[in-house]
């Protein structure tokens, strides 16, 4: 009954989406207020219907109704409740339902909170949003119905892939989808703007909170996925340039570029057609990601078993959505009025450079991801494009970006002097050089090329902090005034500072982890000790432990440093009884400066166990940096000048920085 209710709600949602996608567009073209007024309530109704459907599926999972094929294939009564719920999106059909639910959520949010949007524009945005929904709801109803029944119903389900039974992964897909699907709003805003033929600073102002929200969620989603891969897969790495990782990373890169170019539209009314194109491409990359991940053209953890019909359906959706959008763009963009001029050395120029570098980086990642597929389709040799390719293409493009970033963010709009930037940043530059040289001299073994990474990270942090600090400190007058000036900075400026410092922290973390990792692979007998990066590791032995739905062999390691106790670490080889599958749980001890990361391997005939011991410097900085970047996004969202529905700011408030 519940399953049928969920299915029925989904069919109704499809009908509502059709109405919401078609009527307001006609209404807007004919200036018919009645038709236009359909959009907001339809968006809310659509959210309600899909929520009912989603709720129904969650319910079926909680009560373990195995007469539903999807539940039977992906759940089991012995699973803890959390993983019964997260199992809802741990499979193809359920994750699609989450996808359309979030799409409807964003549509309803625009309907509910977009009070400052002109009525016509808003109805067009909602209509485009609904049309995307039509495509994906049709995809679900025709190829991937999560409510399909099984007859006869099995007594027990088949369980969920054990590596997915994990708190990090319970959170990762919803977060990632909030980002992925959130970019649908920027797409809808771009299409609505093109239909209206009006792209101006207020358009960019409306776009801003939605881009920021999507970007922030995507940042956290990617970080969660990377964190999960780090501690769960037991390889001690945090990023593998796996095609599926790239699929989420490309919209992030394009979205980051969009975030910056929208600022130029907002402040200077220029770079308009480029920004529109970016808004379209960002969502196109999200759709491409969905296609790559869901169609099974890739072999990966995420590739739910492939069904060619599904792949073709998503590909068709991709072609229609992106092709249609680009055709509209080609038709309408030339009529957009070019805006203000600017000198190459200016804030606009710097943001343009940021965009060009990010776009090139996106293109290299895209090429590396699609090249093996294209070669395969064309009948060429089978190849794999892995980290060496991305290190050789993506990383060099980041160097000029990071070098220019602190400089660009202190340049004035329209026309700036480099000498002014030098004046503001020379102290930070000198400090960066001094710190880098100190690193070079003090570190043993010598750093080599990784010094560039550390130097760039330090430069990003110091160069970003230099401006607000010197502004607050310069014209004398006590600590109180210093603090008052600092806190007088608008929140959007703080957001930029926090996000850019976060990037610096991330760069340092990534550099340290990928170049400074110590690894030892040993065969250890219980009682033996080994040395790892200055720590003594004693392998105390292996015993059997039981969990809710698994049995494990648990290896215990005692870590000391110069005789002093540091930590006791446990690494499990778990065997999941239902799924009949083993997994490995690494033992991890984290501090701000390093992770100790131990993995228990297989026993050898003579009683020794293979163990893998890692010392990973500064790993925590990677997640910390990502969290800071997301925090920057949230800070910027909370700036009341940009809040949706906030009154237009007074001129004075826009004049940065407060004095």
């Amino acid at each position, binding site marked *: 009954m519940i399953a049928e209710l969920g299915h029925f709600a989904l069919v109704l949602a499809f009908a509502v989406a059709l109405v919401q996608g078609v009527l307001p567009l006609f209404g807007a073209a004919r200036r018919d207020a009645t038709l236009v007024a359909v959009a907001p309530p339809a968006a809310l109704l659509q959210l309600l219907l899909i929520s009912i459907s989603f709720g129904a599926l969650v319910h079926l999972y909680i009560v373990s109704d195995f007469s539903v094929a999807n539940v039977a294939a992906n759940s089991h009564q012995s699973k803890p409740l959390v993983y019964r719920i997260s199992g809802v999106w741990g499979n193809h059909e359920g994750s699609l339902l989450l996808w359309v639910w979030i799409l409807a959520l964003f549509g309803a949010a625009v309907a509910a909170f977009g009070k400052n949007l002109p009525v016509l524009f808003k109805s067009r945005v909602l209509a485009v949003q609904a049309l995307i929904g039509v495509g994906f709801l049709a995809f679900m109803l025709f190829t991937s119905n999560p409510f399909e029944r099984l007859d006869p119903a099995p007594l027990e389900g088949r369980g969920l892939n054990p590596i997915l039974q994990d708190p990090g992964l319970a959170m990762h897909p919803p977060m990632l989808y909030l980002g992925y699907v959130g970019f649908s709003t920027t797409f809808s805003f771009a299409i609505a703007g093109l239909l209206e033929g009006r792209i101006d600073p207020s358009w960019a102002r409306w776009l801003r909170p939605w881009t920021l929200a999507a970007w922030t969620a995507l940042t956290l989603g990617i970080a969660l996925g990377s964190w999960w891969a780090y501690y769960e897969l037991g390889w001690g790495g945090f990023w593998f340039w796996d095609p599926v990782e790239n699929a989420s990373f490309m919209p992030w890169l394009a979205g980051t570029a969009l975030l910056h170019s929208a600022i130029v539209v907002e402040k200077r009314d220029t770079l308009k057609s480029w920004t529109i194109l970016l808004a379209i491409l960002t969502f196109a990359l999200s759709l491409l990601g969905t296609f790559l991940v869901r169609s099974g053209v890739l072999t990966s953890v995420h590739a739910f078993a492939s*069904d060619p019909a599904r792949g073709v359906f998503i590909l068709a959706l991709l072609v229609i959505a992106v092709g249609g959008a680009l055709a509209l763009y080609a038709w309408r963009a030339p009529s957009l009025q070019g805006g203000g001029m600017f000198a*190459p050395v200016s804030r606009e120029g710097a943001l343009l450079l940021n965009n060009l570098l990010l776009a090139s980086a996106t293109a290299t990642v895209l090429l590396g991801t699609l090249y093996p597929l294209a070669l395969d389709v064309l009948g060429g040799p089978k190849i794999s*494009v892995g980290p060496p390719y991305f290190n050789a293409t993506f990383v060099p493009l980041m160097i000029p970006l990071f070098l220019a970033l602190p400089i660009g963010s202190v340049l004035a709009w329209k026309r700036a002097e480099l000498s002014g930037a030098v004046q503001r940043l020379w102290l930070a530059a000198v400090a960066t050089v001094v710190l880098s040289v100190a690193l070079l001299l003090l570190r043993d073994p010598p750093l080599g090329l990784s010094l560039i990474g550390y130097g760039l990270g330090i430069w990003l942090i110091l160069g970003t902090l230099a401006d607000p600090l010197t502004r607050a400190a310069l014209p004398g007058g006590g600590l109180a005034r210093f603090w008052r000036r600092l806190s007088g900075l608008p929140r959007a400026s703080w957001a930029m500072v926090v996000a850019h410092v976060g990037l610096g922290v991330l760069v340092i973390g990534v550099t340290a982890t990928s170049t400074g990792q110590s690894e030892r692979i040993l065969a250890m007998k219980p009682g033996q000790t080994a040395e790892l990066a200055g720590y003594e590791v004693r392998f105390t032995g292996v015993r059997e432990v039981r969990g809710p739905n698994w049995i494990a062999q648990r290896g215990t390691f005692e870590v000391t440093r110069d005789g002093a106790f540091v930590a006791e670490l446990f690494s499990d080889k778990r065997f999941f009884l239902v799924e009949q599958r083993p997994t490995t749980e690494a033992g991890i001890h984290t501090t701000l400066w390093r992770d100790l990361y131990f993995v228990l391997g297989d026993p050898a005939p003579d009683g020794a166990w293979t163990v893998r011991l890692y010392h990973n410097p500064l790993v925590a900085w990677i997640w910390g940096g990502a969290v800071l970047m997301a925090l920057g996004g949230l800070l910027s969202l909370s700036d009341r000048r940009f809040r949706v529905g906030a009154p237009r700011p007074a001129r004075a408030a826009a004049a940065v920085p407060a004095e």
Partner: protein
Amino acid sequence: MRLRKRQRLVLVALVLLLGAGSAALVLAALGEKVSLFVAPSDLAEKPLEAGKRFRLGGLVAEGSVERRADGEVRFAVTDGAATVTVAYRGILPDLFREGQGIVAQGTLEAGGLFRASEVLAKHDESYMPKEVAEALKRGGHWKEAGEEGGASLPPAAGGEGR
């Protein structure tokens, strides 16, 4: 007007420079930094030079896994038509076992031994790397493997993931 022209010019120059730069990076990297996927029978037909990195895929031959005291593991990878011995130090994936399809990344040594730096098995045991499945089909080993129950056709449904 003159300013606008100059602005355009700088922009075009910048775009060209960056475009050419990234294209050069990509081309250089695609030439050198990608690894070929090879099946054991490919190697038997046309040996690759020692020291070149590539990916080897196939089934772990039954009864071939040998764990040495120093932590090194040796096993044979087969596609039915030919076999290559692989040496690996480290922790094998959870789903590594005899009869399972795997992909190993590494280099050939002079004696024909494949030294792997990485061994991948899929996260899902009912799912076989596509490259391995195709290599097996070419080697004519596909059906036999299925009958042994070790490996089977990737099922039409039931893969799992995110």
